[in-house]
């Protein structure tokens, strides 16, 4: 759509101006060849990694595998019918809760930390580095760290809770907690990166604007919500989008921490796709592809919402 309107605009501009541009409508074969050549790498990459797999996923989603994992039978819409079961509904629900938790906690938390860190006080550099450090962890490594932190036999977290008189829940084996625990490990990883981005956004807020607000008599909270927040909205929007995508793709942390348990209470969408396709000798490529298409649709819908609705409120300077 963009390209079309651009070309139309260019043509309009061309016809409005003098003659020379009209000649440009006839491209020499060499130019066409060059144009095509320049497109080849992009088209080849897109074709190999996006378009071909997409069509293959659509094809596979109508197939059933034999016992050796060959997608040899057509099963029609059977795999899609399996998407309308309570089991898959639960998977979507877990994914939703997980994503909401990670996005809300993983954005608000770093924001709350970034505001005091942006103050020019001594020692803040050290704290900023410390809080950003989890960013260097992979999700799987962070999961192992948190598993140890919450291990029922030697958990320092449980010990600390006991000191203040709270009995710790069974973090990874109790139903609602397991999902929160996995989400928390994810928050821990994304928070570092988000802090970095939000911190950079805060550093870019113009002192003059803040001073103007102060002179106008705005209180601290008022300054934050009416001046600072709009000014860092591009950074906030960016971390919301990346955090959403990261949490939608959660796989390693679920595998390491709970393997989908207890009784499927931490099965998220990507975990379910991977599990159906590759784990335990399941080889249900058809069902996995159908679920993959659901993930694609979820991704598109979220992108449309985020860019169509939320971004309108984003203030780019």
């Amino acid at each position, binding site marked *: *759509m*963009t390209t079309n309107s651009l070309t139309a605009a260019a043509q309009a501009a061309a016809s409005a101006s003098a003659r020379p541009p009209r000649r440009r409508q006839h491209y020499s074969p060499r130019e066409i060849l060059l144009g095509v050549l320049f497109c080849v790498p992009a088209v080849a990459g897109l074709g190999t*990694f*996006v378009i071909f*797999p*997409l069509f*293959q*996923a659509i094809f*596979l989603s109508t197939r*059933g*595998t*034999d*016992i*050796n*994992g*060959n*997608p040899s*039978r057509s099963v029609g819409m059977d795999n899609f019918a399996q998407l309308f079961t309570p089991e898959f509904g639960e998977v979507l629900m877990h994914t939703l809760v997980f994503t909401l938790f990670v996005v809300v906690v993983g954005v608000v938390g770093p924001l709350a930390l970034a505001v005091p860190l942006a103050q020019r006080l001594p020692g803040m550099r050290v704290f900023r580095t410390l809080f950003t450090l989890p960013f260097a962890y992979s999700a799987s490594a962070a999961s192992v760290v948190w598993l140890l932190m919450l*291990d*029922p*036999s*030697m958990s320092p977290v449980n010990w600390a809770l006991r000191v203040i008189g709270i009995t710790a829940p*069974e973090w*990874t*084996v109790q*139903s609602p907690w397991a999902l929160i625990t996995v989400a928390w490990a994810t928050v821990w990883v994304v928070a570092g990166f988000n802090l970095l981005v939000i911190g950079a956004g805060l550093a870019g807020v113009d002192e003059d604007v803040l001073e103007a607000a102060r002179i106008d008599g705005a209180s601290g909270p008022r300054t934050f919500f009416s001046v600072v927040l709009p000014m860092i909205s591009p950074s906030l929007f960016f971390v919301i989008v990346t955090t959403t*995508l990261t949490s*939608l*793709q959660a796989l390693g942390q679920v595998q390491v921490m*709970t*393997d989908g*348990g*207890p*009784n*499927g209470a931490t099965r998220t969408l*990507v975990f379910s*796709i*991977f599990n159906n*396709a*590759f*784990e*335990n*000798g*399941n*080889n249900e*490529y058809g069902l*996995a*592809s159908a679920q*993959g*298409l659901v*993930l*694609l649709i979820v*991704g*598109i819908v*979220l*992108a*449309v919402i*985020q*860019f169509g609705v939320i*971004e309108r409120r984003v203030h780019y300077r």
Partner: protein
Amino acid sequence: MRMTVRRGFGALAIAMAAALTAVGCSSAANSGGGTSGGDAAAPGPDVLNGKGQVEITFWHAMGGTNGEALQKLVEQFNNQNKGKIHVTVNYKGKYDDALAAYKNASAQQRPDLIQMYDIGTRYMIDSKSVVPVQSFVDVDKYDVSDIQPNIAGYYTVDKKLYSLPFNTSMPLMYINREAFQKAGLDPDKPPTTLEDIMADAKKIKATSGETVKFGFGATLYGWFVEQWNAVADQPICDADNGRTGRASKVMLNTPTNQKLFTWWQDMIKQGLAMKLDSNTDNGDNAFSSGTVAMALESTGSLGGFVKGAAEAAHPFTVGTGYFPKVDAANTGGPIIGGASLWITNRGDQVKERAAWELVKFLGSKESQVTWHTSTGYFPISKGALDDPADKQWVSQKPQFATAIKQLQGTKLDFATQGCSVGEMPSVRKEVENGLQAAMLQGKDVTEALTGVENAANKKIADYNAKLGG
């Protein structure tokens, strides 16, 4: 506006890429299954003559010390067969991963030899991608009488020995001897029934100054449920555990399992059993760190437990007992777990023969003595247990004598052979889901067991339908 749209496409591309990396990987779905297993006569030893050095690949699932021991054995084989056969070993991760890798591989990508766990047996036969070991046994007039009959029984289907057992383990009851002594219990008489376990756990809990937190703690591992049913002499699949016909359904919602699940729930409710998940690593840590006084695990974990117990915050000594019975009157015995070696059919008789030479080497008495003493797996060779080096090892590890007695005391029938069904790995996972539902989510026992039965039966029906179509 232009910026926004372009960014929009960028995000779309990211979302698509996210979705597609997941589904796109399924392009690894292979094509071209194995050619027919066939009963054609296996190639004799002459086929290797004049072929130069034959290269074969061997996939296995032995990590840590066990993997090192296997590597050493294969190196020994390579040295003995210099210029004739060279084996490349490839560690594929856990058993489940090795099975998944085999299923995900195309016929060309498959190895010449693979170590497959017990419950993968029926699938391997159904896959028609293997050469039954029996055909080599027949050609070579290979003497199989040295193999422990209970072990050979597991891998004999339709009167054919399909694979050569290699590493064999049984489940045992492990106890913390000091915790028993402090509670006034006899550590030489570990509990043998569920009631006994509960009674002992209560005594341990009531002991003042006890550092152990729970009397009992076992991983919610589907394998144990299979064992309890075998000990109760009850087949868990129809058609005599799939041994006299193709199994079509499981029988899990039985009084035995209801009693077992209810007992386990009670143990947790009363604070006598630790809440664990289905990851055996966590269960193993709970025992070797001294958190629980009684645990269930395979004989293969003995070495790790003894080492862990000595290094625990409150060091203790490890004792062993028979796998417990659900009812004192139970007459069966545990199933022989572990894995066996499968020769794959890739249409190259030279490689098949070379793989068989390696299988013979690994199953030999000498190799089994080395294997047993360096890993703690049960030797498949009867002769290995009479070997002086082996006898000395056993005398140093009195806990292992329990395993030998338990194996020799187990009668061989359909129940103690375990269920032979192609979807056994999935059935085990469903049982684990049921255990998690009952123990961790507090679901009603009958409801949990019915759920397991339905889910498992659906998987088996799907599998059998795939075989037909």
